[in-house]
Structure formats: structure tokens, C-alpha cells
């Protein structure tokens, strides 16, 4: 099989699943190690604005930051979250993602992985504490941090709180006998 054809096949699997596992496609995985195939794939990377990276036994496709074809943009997140989602909701989801990544991979030694799973309730509790801390801190300090890190903290903390209040209200409402 020509290296171009192999590269296309690999790329097709990546487009379809976002990744190529050694177990599922052992032949393609081995072909990937061929330098000619990698050359073709690197042209794909340039044109499709993405990066193809092999990590251990899996090959991943990472879209570039502003690639709206293969990756998500803020707009996509908004649509994904809901039709009335605002930018602050998107930023909140980013923060939560960051936090989850932190919870899993905050180890500093050879293997940074800290845990195998986290319960959603535990995650919510921890987020509650985080956002409460943000809101209870000296606002000026927080604003300084926001500007330093280019990240919305106060706003997303408020959005988080709004959502919790909403849920509680809902529960209270449902307890009212008809």
C-alpha cells in the first residue's frame, strides 16, 4: 500500500474517532511509524490545521486552537450547553474542565495521574467551596488575579451560584403539595 493511501486511512480513522488505538488498528499503527507516512501526515497537519501525536499506544488528532472544522470554538460550546447559554456559561465549563484536569493530573512526579475517578457529587462540593472562596475573598485581589491570569473568576462563580439556587428552588417547589 502506498504511503499516501496509508496516511489517508489513518487520517480517516482519526476523523472518525478522534484517535487511533494500537489494539483496534494494529496494522495502521505500525504503518504510522513509517517515516514516509509521517511525512504525508505532516502535510495533512498543515492543511487541516491540526496536530497528530502519538502518545504511548494511541495516536491522537488535536485540532489547532482556532480550527472550527475539527475542533470546538466558544460558539460550539454555547450551542452544546444550550440554546440560551452565554459566554459566562462557556467560561464556567472551561473552569470546571481545568479543575477536573487538576484533580486528576496534579501530580508532580513521573506519573502525574492522581486518581482513577471522581464522583460528581464530590466534584460539585469542591467546586462549591472554590467558588465560595472566590466570592468571599477580597474582590480587589480577585480582580487582580483575573487580570493576571486572563480568566473570569467572579462572573463564573456567580453563574455557578445562580445555577445552584435555581436547583434548590426547584426542589423546594416540588415539595409543595398540590
Amino acid at each position: 500500500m502506498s504511503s499516501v493511501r496509508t496516511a489517508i486511512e489513518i487520517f480517516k480513522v482519526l476523523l472518525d474517532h478522534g484517535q487511533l488505538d494500537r489494539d483496534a488498528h494494529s496494522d495502521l499503527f505500525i504503518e504510522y511509524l513509517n517515516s514516509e507516512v509521517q511525512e504525508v501526515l505532516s502535510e495533512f497537519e498543515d492543511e487541516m490545521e491540526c496536530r497528530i501525536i502519538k502518545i504511548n499506544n494511541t495516536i491522537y488528532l488535536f485540532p489547532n486552537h482556532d480550527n472550527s472544522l475539527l475542533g470546538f470554538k466558544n460558539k460550539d460550546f454555547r450551542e452544546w450547553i444550550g440554546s440560551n447559554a452565554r459566554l459566562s456559561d462557556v467560561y464556567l465549563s472551561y473552569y470546571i474542565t481545568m479543575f477536573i484536569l487538576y484533580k486528576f493530573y496534579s501530580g508532580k512526579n513521573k506519573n502525574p495521574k492522581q486518581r482513577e475517578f471522581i464522583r460528581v457529587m464530590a466534584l460539585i462540593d469542591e467546586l462549591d467551596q472554590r467558588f465560595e472562596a472566590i466570592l468571599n475573598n477580597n474582590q480587589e485581589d480577585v480582580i487582580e488575579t483575573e487580570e493576571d491570569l486572563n480568566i473570569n473568576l467572579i462572573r463564573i462563580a456567580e453563574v455557578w451560584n445562580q445555577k445552584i439556587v435555581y436547583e434548590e428552588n426547584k426542589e423546594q417547589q416540588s415539595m409543595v403539595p398540590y
Partner: protein
Amino acid sequence: MFSFLGGFEKRMEIVGIVESIVNRKNRNMELERLFDDNDFLNLVFSVLLYIMEKTLSEDADCDSEHILKFMEAILPKYYVVQLDNNQLHQLTDYIIKNVLQNEGIAYHFKAVDYAHDARKNITIRLIADHVQEVNGGYKITYALTDQGYDFLFRTKEVDQEIQMTIEELKLKELIKRKNFKKAHDQSRNLIQMVRQKKKEIQLFMLKIKENIHDADIGQYEKLINSTYDLLNEEYDLLSEVMDMSRKSEEKLRLEYESSLNLDASIKKAQAEIKQINYNIRATLSEQRDLILSRQSLSKVYIDTIGDSLAYGMENRYDIEELILKQMEQNVEQVERFWQLVNPLFLPNVYKNINIRSIYEPQGMIKLEEAEKQDFIEDEDLSEDYEQEKIERVNVIYVEILDYLLRQALKNNGACRLEDIICSLEDEQDLFHRLTEERMLFTTLLKLYDIGVVNLAEWRNQEDKVVMNLSEEFNLEYCLYQLMDKYDYVHSVDKFEILKDTDDLIEIEVSRSIQEDLHVLEKIEVSNFMIRVEEQDEQR
């Protein structure tokens, strides 16, 4: 009122004819009793048909003897009735004179004529007798009347082909008998019939195009064959008819030549023959068209059948049978069925979350910005505010110019700013309004910049255009407004603001920004001179 009742009396004519035969009075029960149930009626109609056949196809006369022979031939075999010669004569006489001719008395049927709200008397007469002189004696022959023909044609299963043949035979007969008026009508009918056939083919074609399965092959073949046979036959007959009409024409010409008298009847007959010839030609051309449409019918039929077969060869899903029912029976496999419709969807590329985008710098969301949802409305409002402000500012500009001019005119055409401010300070409201955002002073400076304003010239200009207004001082707009509002402006020729002294005047303007917050502005400005020139006669 009821359109479907139009021509009702015409329909009733048929009923009247049947009634005249079925509900006869003065029946000869002795003769009629010889026949079973409805056999006598059958015999009567058979005799009618015999008369028609005899007079038309054999082109011969039909007298009572012929009819008698006819009955003699059919009675034993078909009616199982044996009659002696005397009885046969009685029966023949009875059928011809009593049954078909109502003993020579005109038979009338009263039909309702809805169009005229009246009863129409329809005369029924199926056969007519003709007295012929033969070998010094007389012979009575019988022939069908037009009514009789009409009736008999209608009693037959209407088949264009047969009907047409008879129409033509009749035409032939009529031409022979020099009954050209009728022949004329008949030839017109011929055209109508060919056209009807054509229409039939068109309708069938439409049917084929709509749904080939509705049109069965037998029907198609019958139509095609009948058309083809008909046309073959028609051609011969028609050319024969044409021949005859030509001969009749010749005969008429000879008659005319021998008598040298072109009487009205010959003239009429000639005109009618001409018409007949014309109609026959038209029939021929219509028939040619009919052949063509028959061909296109064949083409359409074959094409459509071909298409239909091609469709049939395609493996198409019976959605209900192959998909819906299967889905209902294999609910657990439903997801797989969706693959069937996959080709209908846009490609769905797997999108990956780029972790980096989560850590990208974020634009700071301001609380109020985030809360604002109806941006569009806000924009609208801000535009409205702007427009409102522009209008208000321009009203003030006009007021300023008006005030300056009036003050100058009051003081014989020249006035110092000092005096104007003095009198303005007496009217606090106006003062505040005119000095708002230092508008009075900026206007003065602008007017000073402009120099002499020649109103007379401006008035005479044809193309006075006022540009879109802004917050800026617009001299033309102000002049326009003044001209519109005040008469005195019409007498002003020119005006200018001069600085003829270095004196400065100081003006204090105080205003409140909030309830308890007052601002005092001190403005130093040259003591301008405002000079206004009026038209000569006004001075």
C-alpha cells in the same frame, strides 16, 4: 337556476319515443298475445332496425312486403311463433300502421322545458311513408325519420366507429336524395366525430402519462386498432361521399343548364354542397391529425411502459414493508435502521476538544455586560437618543440666530453682544437654553468665521439643499427654518458679525448638574457687533 336541467326536453324526447311504443293505446291484444312477455317489443324494434338497414345499407326502398318477409324469416327461429300468411299480413300492418305510426295520428309527448318554464310538445314520428308511382300503380315505402335514426343510434352501444360509418352512409343517402341541408349537418357531424376520436386518444394519452397502470393494454390495442380500421374505412367512404357530392354538383349544373333557371332551391343546394365539400376536406385533415395523434399515442404508450419497466427493475424500498415493519418487529435493532438514512445527512466530523482552548486568555466579562441581553433594543435606543439630541440642538441654533437678528433689527440694524446678553439675562429660561453647552458662544464664533451672510443671494438660489443634520451648527438649515417661521427674515438682505473692538465681555453661566451641585462657568468673549441690512424699501 339548475344548469343540469338545461336541454332537459331534448333528453325527454328519447323517453317519449320509448313511451310511444311501450304505452300504446288501442292495442290489438289478439295479435300481441301471440308473443311471450316482451317479445313483441323486441319484434317492433327489430322491424325498425330492418327498415334502417334496408333503406341505408342496401340503398333500396322498403315496403310492407319486405317487412313481412323479414318477419317471416325471424319469427319461427327466434320467437318460436308460427303464423300463417294472413296473420303475417295482419301483424305487419299492425306494426307499421298502429305501433310505429300511431294509426297515422301524430303522437305528442309533453316534456318540461325548464329554461322557459313551459311544456314542450314533442312530436314523435319514427318512420315516414312515401308514396311512389310504379307501373301505373302506387307503392308505399317506409323509411326512418331523422328522429328514428337518432333514436336507433342511441339505443346502440355508442361506438364511434360504427356510428361514424352510419353517419357517412346516411350522408351518402342524403346526398343521393338531394337533401343537402341535412347532408350539410351530417358532414358537420363527421368533423365532430373525428375530433371526438382525437380527443379520446388525447385523454387516453393523458391517462397513460398519469398512471400507466390505469391504462390496460387491451384498451390501448382496441383504441389503436379501432382508430386504424376506422380510418382505413373512412378514407374510402369519404372519398366516395366526395365523389357523390361532386356528381350531385354536376347534376345540379346540368339541371341548371337545361332549365337555364337558377332558382332559389338550386342556389341553396349549391351553397350547401359547397359547404359539404368544405366539411369533408376538413374531416380529411382532421383524420390526418388523428393518425398523427395515434402515432404519438403509440410512442407515449411505449415510452411510458419502458419507463415503468425501468422503474420496476430498480430495487426500490417498500418503506413500509422493508423498514417500518422490520423496525417494529426488531425494536432492539432500531439504531441500525438509522444507517439506511445516513446518506441523507451531512458528514459529521468527529470534533476534538482542544485542551489549549480551555486555557486561552479570556475576554473579561463585565457584570452589566453579561446581564444585558437585548443588545439590539439598546442600540436602537441610543440611536433614538442621538436623533433626539440633534433635533433639540438644532432648535436652539435656530433660536440663537433668531434672537441675534431680532435684537439687531430692534436697534436699527446693529447691536453689540453686550446688549444682547443684557436683554437675554432678563429671560432666564431662554438664557439657560441658549447658553447650554456654550452653544450661544460657539455659534457666534462660527458666524464670525463665516463673515457676511448674503441672505438675498441665498434666497434666489434654486438648489437649496439641507444636508443631514448633526450636532454642528448648520447655517443653511437655520435660515431655512427662520424663513419658514418668520416673515421679517424675508426683508433681511445680509447680516454679519464683526469684531470692531478689542473689548472683552465676561459672562457668567451657572447651571445645576445634580440636585445640590451647581457649576458656575465664566466665559470671556469679544464684544462682537451684529449688523443686519434690510432691503432698501424696508428702511
